């Protein structure tokens, strides 16, 4: 009986005495309650075709080889879309051990003199170490990033949201640079060598 009481006490302490490790990360939310990064950016002297080309070039350079098949350009709608992902790691692990991957969608819509981006549909794909010692995705273990975490695992979940916040901030900065990379009317300059 004493043994059972000790086991019960240990479990009670584990569940109820948990320190708070990190500050809650607040990500921007759209009207449907999904985490969404969204902004309209004014760019003078850029026509829609140039902006669409820049958007496509940016996404081509940003997403990796396997994600290239998700890249779609729609000239009629004036938008480029793609799916992307990045790995997130176990907090406190000795090496950078993968806890999962954050998958999300990117959309850049263009008009003359402006564009808007939407980064949304954030999902967490869980990973585990397999029997061969390698980390791999678990088939079917995918959940929206908005899913609330339990008190016991809040610190790890919050760390993933912090990573999303950092990654999206860098992504948006890079996008804003690349969207202005080639200006309207820029012509490809050819250097003519005299000694040919």
């Amino acid at each position, binding site marked *: 009986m004493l*043994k*059972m009481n000790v*086991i019960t006490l*240990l*479990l009670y302490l*584990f*569940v109820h005495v*948990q320190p708070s490790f990190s500050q809650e990360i607040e990500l921007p939310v759209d009207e449907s309650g999904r985490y969404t990064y969204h902004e309209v950016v004014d760019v003078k002297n850029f026509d829609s075709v140039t902006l669409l080309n820049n958007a496509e070039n940016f996404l081509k350079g*940003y*997403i*990796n080889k396997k*994600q290239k098949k998700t890249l779609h350009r729609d000239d009629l709608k004036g938008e480029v879309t793609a799916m*992307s*992902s*990045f*790995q997130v790691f*176990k*907090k*406190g*692990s*000795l*090496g*950078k*051990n993968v806890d999962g991957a954050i998958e999300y969608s990117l959309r850049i819509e263009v008009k003359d003199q402006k564009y808007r981006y939407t980064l949304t549909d954030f999902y967490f794909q869980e990973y*585990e*170490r*397999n*029997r*061969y*010692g*390698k*980390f791999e995705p*678990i*088939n*079917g*273990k995918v*959940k929206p990033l908005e*899913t609330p*975490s*339990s*008190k*016991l*695992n809040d*610190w*790890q*979940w919050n760390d993933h949201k912090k990573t999303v916040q950092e*990654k999206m901030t*860098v*992504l948006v900065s*890079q996008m804003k640079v690349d969207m202005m990379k080639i200006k309207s009317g820029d012509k490809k300059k050819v250097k003519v060598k005299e000694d040919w």
Partner: protein
Amino acid sequence: MKKTILLLTTLCVFAFTVKAQDEDSGLKISGSVDTYYKYDFSGEPNIETSFANEQNSVSIGMIDIALEQTVGKASFVGEIAFGPRNAGSAGPGASVMEPHIQNLYVSYAFSDLLTLSAGYMGTFVGYEVISPTGNFNYSTSRLFTNGPFQNAGIKADFTISDRFAFMVGLFDDWNVYQDFNGVSDFGAQIYVAPVEGWDVYLNFITGYHTQAFYTDLAGSVTEFDITTGYQITDAFYLGLNFATASAEFEDDSEDGFTGLALYPQYAISDAVAIGLRYENFSWKDAQSYNSFTLSVPISSGPLTFIPEFRLDTSDEDVFEDSDLAATGSASQVSLAAIYAF
């Protein structure tokens, strides 16, 4: 000065150019430590499975350390363990204090389609694994205990799509670093994912062993295994393992087993789950067992507690009660603590 600024700027741009997926090619270090307390209600360590058999004692499992690195198309895994759980996986007579290799192999991905691996690898057969971080229950099934733990050899993995893959390989005898009768096992695996969240593995291994079926007799051993798991809803998962194995020894005797295990599991939250393992296991022309294991893993990041209750019954009186009399059933409780790093 201008050159220095230009160089620094170039380096900064190079360093901060973002890419979608951070493919980390650094050396990964992972592993686990585990400890447990077990109490069999008869007062005797009745239910003998591979590990965690010590009665009324706060005992240790093992420390497991794995190194892994992938650079380009080449990769390696080196995993070593110490402790009683490790010794249990090394077979009869293994010392608790001796280290044992869990994985030691190199791989080369010739293309997205074909990867070749050679070395000593965790077995592709079966549902449960040696590492306590890879199992839902802490105690192990008889199907696990009596199948292979590791297979040294060379294998070719063909990934046709996300939904279909297969493997063929040539292997040593089960669980040995060196095969004294030559590479004599043939193994194959077919992987199918009929729908999202459902994995099906059909496994087959056959060969001639100098110590067949964990005996001192030589003979040929064949095992066929189905391992499958379906994440039916976000919370509910169902796993299944079926295996049948046979051995024909040199002295013309035979042995074998057949078993089925079901693993229904329900995630109450991302920290707490509850799951039952039901196993029916029969030796050829000998006793059979029914086993029920109820586990409730509670996790906080790297630490998991697994309180567990297990009841085993047999058609023969193979267990002992508290008066040391032969009986047909045994039950135990255990509490395991597992830290994964």
